[in-house]
């Protein structure tokens, strides 16, 4: 057994232990802490699986945004009784059976089956980008990505629809505050511009290297949320027209490019000469909208401090 395999083994064991702690731990705060660690370890796992694009998304979303979203919820739900998790044999047996079944089934098909990788490689020359994952997301399977951007918007509509009438037209979430010129505020001043640069870099890099609109957009969302949490920026109200344009800009641009593609042959089909330009424009539009949508999803519906 070589040492690389030992590393993978320990990593996988840790992932499992942390997952057990995240669902089984007694305190909510510990559950969520372990869930953040879980996301971080998964990102390492994706690097080991040669999926650097996925590792970027997991590190940004799993360990970053989801963590902050859940921590905010813990702060509000903490005082409620939650009862210890007990080991019940029947569900445990059931879940064990399912896990063994799935594991067995996947191990059987692991070496067989047609793979799409050769097809992607054969057509990468016409895709307009060199990163095969970006080529799949924004060219070969751009339907999925367009619909996903719409799903994000629908989720935000769902979150906003939970607003009380009295709170509508206020800023999303509860009011964030920090001591002006305190440590936190200065931290935000230092880190937010840094996040902006890293976010734009990731969107830009996505054409030829791991990265893209989702990863870059998530970092942009984190940078903006950091400024909000440090008390430096005030989120716009839910009724703000400019904000709504930012939210729909990406999907709208995507749709318009798709219709332009239709005049040239097929809906969402990019003419080979135009592909690089169109994809880059869509990437930046999407990154902006994704950043705004994700940040607002994390902030939640406008609420009053009780």
């Amino acid at each position, binding site marked *: 057994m070589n040492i690389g395999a030992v590393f993978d083994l320990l990593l996988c064991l840790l*992932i*499992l232990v942390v*997952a057990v702690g*995240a*669902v*089984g731990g007694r305190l*909510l705060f510990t*559950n*969520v802490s372990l*869930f953040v660690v*879980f996301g971080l370890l998964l990102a390492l*796992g*994706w690097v080991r*699986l040669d*999926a650097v694009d*996925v590792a970027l*998304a997991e590190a940004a*979303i799993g360990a970053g*945004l*989801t963590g902050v*979203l*859940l921590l905010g919820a*813990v702060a509000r*739900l903490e005082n*409620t009784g*939650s*009862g210890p998790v007990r080991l019940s044999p029947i*569900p445990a047996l*059931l*879940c064990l059976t*399912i*896990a*063994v079944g*799935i594991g067995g089934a*996947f*191990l059987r*098909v692991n*070496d067989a*089956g047609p*793979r799409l*990788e050769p097809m*992607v*490689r054969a057509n990468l020359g016409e895709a307009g980008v060199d990163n*095969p*994952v970006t*080529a*799949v*997301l924004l060219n070969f*399977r751009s339907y999925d*990505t367009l619909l*996903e951007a719409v*799903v994000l918007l629908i*989720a935000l509509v*769902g*979150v906003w629809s939970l607003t009380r009438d009295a709170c509508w037209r206020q800023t999303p979430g509860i009011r964030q505050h920090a001591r002006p010129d305190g440590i936190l505020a200065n931290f935000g001043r230092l880190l937010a511009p840094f996040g902006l640069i890293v976010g734009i870099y990731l969107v830009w890099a996505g054409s030829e290297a791991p990265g893209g609109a*989702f990863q870059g957009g998530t970092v942009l969302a984190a940078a903006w949320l950091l400024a909000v949490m440090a008390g430096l920026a005030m989120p716009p109200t839910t009724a703000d027209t400019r904000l709504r344009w930012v939210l729909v800009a990406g999907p709208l641009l995507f749709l318009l490019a798709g219709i332009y593609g239709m005049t040239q042959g097929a809906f969402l089909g990019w003419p080979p000469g135009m592909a690089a330009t169109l994809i880059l424009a869509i990437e930046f539009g999407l990154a902006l909208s994704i950043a705004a*949508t*994700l940040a607002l*999803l*994390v902030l939640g519906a406008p609420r009053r401090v009780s």
Partner: protein
Amino acid sequence: MSIFTLTGAALVGIGMYGMITSRHLLRQILAFNIIGSGIFLLLGALGRNGESDPVPHALIITGIVVALSATALAVMLALRLHEDTGDTTLPNGHDGDG
């Protein structure tokens, strides 16, 4: 890379167990996310005997982002329930059983 396949399968099991046994909504949301991660891992580790395959990777990235939006919606529903009723669990199923 079969070890990652096994880990994915185990995560699905752990998540399902958490989903069934814990009543607290936030823990159920965590469990739901762990099931999702397990499925992503199964998909990502599938058929890895040569070049890594960009198609499942693209699907997984899409999935991670959608999981976040679903999580955000679920968290906000739980918070609203808590604001309105003070509860952090759903009402018991067999109360209104008919």
